[in-house]
């Protein structure tokens, strides 16, 4: 009786399950007939007698990746014999990693034709074994496993030896020039047009009885342009303190506010007028780019500064600020190393420090040994670059036009030296 009932239930059960089984079996049929859209599944496909066959990859080797922290291993292999450019049964490869004898973990799925892979998920305190499977539309065929390998940690990256050498030459030149300047030898730096106008601009503000507005850009103290702007601010503040003119500096970063106050305070102390300094000279507005711009534009039209300095890192706000300064009739001295913003400053300002002139300006104005030595050291780097460009262009042109072997060799050497990543 019980058995009959169970049979009844079973028949009904199967009738209900039939449509479901049809649905489930459809992708399997499609996969076996080679029409599956995605050959890669998350589960291992076990080959059977009806599976599409393929030879496994051969000569699988694993080697330590050079100059890393032990997080990479390089695998190479000879692709499957069933992976020709056209018409093969291999639809891809899978790379499996076995760490410290544990279960294999799939680390990469690669397209057909691939013969190498770098595993970037290793660590120096584990041992790894790899195997690669040739994947067909219905099965995977496993290669021989590699020997166990422990990744090495390298402390020095010798691929960057030429970068190190160049840094050493430029850095060494900086040190030598700083020492030279400290010993009292005058280091020549050519005139920079925009800087000649600084004293005149401050004097103009004094005569007109209007304030000076200093905008240090919108980036923080970790940007070298902000640092250069603040260095120039130190020199400008000293002149302002001498002339007893007002300066106002709205900022968009709290650290820049702190550094700006320190800079102006030090300048006023150097000028012998510490009593004239006030923390209100530097105020924080907001970190928000266009909120800051709205506030500075408002300050410009209400305070009508006679002189506006825009020295630092600027983005989309550059033209808005420079155009407003131009509109109120202020004399404007701008400087930034952002190529996209320089055209706007050139169009709307009276003087513009282009790119590295901003950094050179701080050295030129301060006349301090450290800044001057740094500038001269950088010139050594530029001289090297100019010499290599002339040598390289001549060598590659002669070498390629007339097929002169020695010139081609020289070109290869120069390109190799300067190819440091």
């Amino acid at each position, binding site marked *: 009786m019980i058995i009959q009932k169970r049979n009844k239930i079973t028949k009904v059960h199967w009738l209900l399950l039939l449509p479901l089984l049809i649905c489930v079996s459809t992708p399997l049929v499609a996969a076996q007939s080679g029409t599956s859209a995605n050959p890669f599944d998350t589960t291992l496909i076990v080959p059977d007698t009806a599976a599409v066959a393929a030879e496994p990859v051969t000569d699988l080797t694993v080697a330590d990746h050079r100059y890393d922290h032990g997080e990479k291993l390089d695998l190479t292999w000879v692709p499957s014999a069933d992976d020709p450019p056209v018409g093969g049964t291999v639809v891809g490869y899978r790379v499996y990693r076995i760490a410290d004898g544990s279960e294999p973990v799939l680390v990469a799925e690669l397209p057909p034709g691939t013969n190498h892979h770098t595993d970037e998920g290793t660590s120096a305190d584990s041992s790894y074994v790899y195997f690669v499977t040739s994947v067909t539309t219905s099965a995977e065929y496993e290669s021989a496993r590699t020997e166990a390998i422990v990744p090495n940690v390298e402390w020095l990256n010798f691929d960057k030896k030429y*970068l190190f050498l*160049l*840094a050493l030459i430029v*850095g060494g030149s900086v040190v030598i020039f700083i020492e030279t300047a400290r010993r009292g030898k005058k280091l*020549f*730096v*050519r005139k920079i047009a925009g800087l000649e106008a600084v004293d005149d601009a401050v004097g103009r503000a004094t005569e007109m009885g209007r304030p000076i507005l200093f905008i240090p850009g919108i980036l923080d*103290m*970790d*940007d*070298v342009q902000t640092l250069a702007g603040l260095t120039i601010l130190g020199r400008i503040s000293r002149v302002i303190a001498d002339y007893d003119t007002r300066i106002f500096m709205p900022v968009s970063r709290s*650290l820049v506010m*702190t550094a700006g106050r*320190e800079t102006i305070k030090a300048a006023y102390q150097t000028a012998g007028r510490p009593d004239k300094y006030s923390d209100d000279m530097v105020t*924080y507005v907001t*970190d*928000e780019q*266009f*909120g800051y711009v*709205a506030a500075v*534009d*408002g300050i410009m*039209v*209400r305070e009508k500064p006679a002189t506006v300095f825009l020295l630092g890192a600027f983005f*989309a706000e550059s*033209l808005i600020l420079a155009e407003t300064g131009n509109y109120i009739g202020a004399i404007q001295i701008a400087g930034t190393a952002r*190529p*996209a913003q*320089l*055209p706007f400053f*050139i169009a709307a300002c009276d003087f513009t420090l282009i*790119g*590295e*002139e901003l950094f*050179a300006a701080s050295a*030129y104005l301060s006349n301090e040994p450290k800044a001057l030595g740094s*500038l*001269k050291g950088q*010139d050594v*780097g*530029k001289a090297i*670059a*100019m010499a*290599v*460009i*002339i040598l*390289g*262009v001549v060598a*590659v*042109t002669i*070498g*390629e*036009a007339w*097929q002169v072997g020695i010139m081609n060799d020289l*070109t290869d050497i120069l*390109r190799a030296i*300067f*190819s*440091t*990543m």
Partner: protein
Amino acid sequence: MDHLAVWVAAFLTLGIISFLYKDNPWYKLSEAIFVGISAGYWFVTLFWDNIYGKFWVGKGEDPMLWVGAALGVLMLLRLIPKIGWISRWPLAFIVGCTAGLYLINYLSSNMMRQVQGTILPFFSSQFGSGFDATAYTIVGNIVVAVGTFTGLVYFFFSKEHKGAFGGTARVGIFFIMLTFGASFGYTVMSRMSLLIGRVDFLFFDWLGMIK
């Protein structure tokens, strides 16, 4: 609620745009709201992301976070005049680390890679048979090499721009200005897209005139 937000946004947008006419109370109100809300927003964001998120929720598990926290506390010491000078240490730390980090990055990308990319032949048998090179390749290579070299001469500060050196520097600034001209046009176009975005908001979201 959404309608109210759109109306407020439109009111503030027009308030900011009204600056094009002249400074006025509407602009001043919009500016004050913009500055106040954005400053408050940044304060709240930084507090919840950094102080609450990393030290309260995250328990400060990364030891480097405590280095940053210590530097932050040192910065606050400027509130105590007697030991305010200590606040210069974290500033010096940031400036020094940044300078060191950028030295290598700039040497690698701005100098070495640039020089490598400039070593190009003016003529080559690979351009075609003999000197039958394409004008585009020749002119392109010459522009890159001459532009880079003369640009470097312009930014060389140890020699006065006089004579042949000055002439080369003038060629350099010519190349630089040409680049700026192209950059100007390109950037103006991207600014136009910002304006179009605002106009689209006014006419589509607010007025509903664009369907």
